[in-house]
């Protein structure tokens, strides 16, 4: 383990970043402690993906500091697992489920390393964890959307990292897969690992996360799910986009 309970897993200070030439993040400061399930919510174009890219060292911040697992994002990225948005991946690529999950072992194996028994074990464990072990030899292109998402989740788990970053894992998947992702988040927390998850399902943040960041270029809120989904917070962050707020002060995007 790289992180102990005292070092923050993520620490940003005044993080400001541009996506192409647009200001995407401004003066964002927050800290994530080990073992937290962190939800990141905010309207489209709020800079959520830019923030994830900063955490993974793919974008250099214009100003401010980012520290991941006590080092710079570029140095930390071998120790960060990543689940990309499904539509960003070529789903017709010729690969079986086992091949895709095996790609998660790349940092352990290196560009020319051979597959070792612990790589194989990690792949089998990850597939079993999300119940796709029976599909191991099925080509990616023949899976349902939910099964594909679970394959990518298994790949991220096979990376075997202390921090897992997921970009909209709940988007367009079936209920079984949603429940599976929920369970994976819980098991990560009990193993002391941290997950940062971009999510659009505002009505579910209460049960899914321990800490919620409400983002719309600036960080509108950093706290518990209870306080994050208060109507006043969301109204400010989602200004302009319509919200349906029911009697229990629970909020859904319109």
């Amino acid at each position, binding site marked *: 383990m790289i992180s102990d309970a005292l070092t923050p897993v993520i620490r940003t200070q005044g993080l400001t970043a541009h996506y192409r030439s647009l200001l995407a993040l401004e003066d964002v400061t927050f800290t994530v402690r080990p073992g937290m399930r962190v939800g990141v919510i905010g309207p489209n174009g709020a800079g959520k993906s830019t923030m994830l890219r900063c955490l*993974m*060292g*793919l974008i250099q911040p214009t100003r401010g500091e980012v520290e991941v697992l006590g080092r710079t994002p570029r140095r930390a*990225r*071998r120790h*960060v697992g*990543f689940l*990309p948005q499904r539509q*960003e*991946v*070529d789903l017709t*690529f*010729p*690969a*079986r489920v086992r*091949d*895709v999950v095996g*790609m998660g072992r*790349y*940092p352990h*194996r290196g*560009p*020319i*390393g051979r597959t070792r028994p612990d790589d194989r074990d990690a792949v089998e464990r990850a597939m079993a964890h999300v119940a796709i072990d029976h599909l191991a030899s099925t*080509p990616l*292109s*023949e899976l349902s959307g939910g099964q594909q998402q679970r394959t990518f989740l298994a790949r991220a788990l096979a*990376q075997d990292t202390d921090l897992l970053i997921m970009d909209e894992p709940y988007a367009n998947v079936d209920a079984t897969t949603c429940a599976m992702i929920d369970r994976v988040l819980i098991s990560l927390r009990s193993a002391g690992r941290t997950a940062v998850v971009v999510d659009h399902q505002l009505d579910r943040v209460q049960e899914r996360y321990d800490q919620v960041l409400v983002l719309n270029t600036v960080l509108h809120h950093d706290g518990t799910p209870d306080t994050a989904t208060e109507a006043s917070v969301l109204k400010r962050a989602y200004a302009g986009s319509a919200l349906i707020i029911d009697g229990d002060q629970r909020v859904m995007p319109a």
Partner: protein
Amino acid sequence: MSDLVLAPLVDYGFMRTGLLAALIVGGCCALLSCLLVVRGRSLLGDAVSHSVLLGVVIGYLVGGEFGILPGAMLVAAVSGAAISFVARRTPLEAETAMGVVFTPLFALGLAIISVVQPRGIDLFHVLFGNVLGVSPSDVWLTGVAAGLVVAVVLVGFRAFELWSFDPVLAACMGMRTGAMDHLFTALLSAAIVAALKTVGLVLVVAMLILPGATAALVCRRLATMMALAVAVGMGSGVVGLYGSYHLDVASGPAIVLAASGAFVVVLLLAPRSGLLTGRWTHWRLRTHRNGAVGGTSPTTDPLGTDQVSDATIRASSEHT
């Protein structure tokens, strides 16, 4: 039969060297064609091969025969870098960026040839190949260039697979994807140099697309796809060379036509997805079903029957 196949090899040394060159080129280009096809970047081969002309000319003028490979790789690397620079820094699409970069380099190569008229470069042969004129020393150049390509792709297979499938994740995992892009362009240029004497700069584009495209029709893993593509590439090298010998056709076109033939055959007859085989399965299941149930005639309920047989086909293909 042995007269057709063995006699030319026994009688003519140029057929032996030609066959060796065709096998090496077919296999090496096929390997890279898989990566081009799965990345949806097939036209990159076109762009690099045109730029390579300039490298060949400059390399030859500076270092003679031995300057060709380094010259080609250098100019290819420069053109690859220029393409990504134009694509990143301008609003132009990647395809346009390729066109903007490779056409002037090609033109510059042609211009230099027209001025200098170097003795060792026969423009027609450089563009369209002349496998039967391959000398043993050419086979060495071909072998070294192709060996380099095959070794790098096989040793770095995992890296190339990840880089093709999910470059963002690859970058997250610490892979220097920009460096991989350049490495790949350099490998392409080496393969193109290897193919210079056999199929030439223009037709090598076909060998950098057809074998991979053929294999992509049937394969479900990158590794098997590469194996099949290499078989298709080498097979068309052999078939094309004999076609060229017996029918008196230029060797480059003959090899490319053989590869196109392989593509068409697989397109029509692939086990599950072939245009003809798919029809045949469909037809057989439908008649079988109608016969077994003994009732639902297509004329009374065409829609319903079609739906049933479609479902059956889907179910049956899941088991194969």
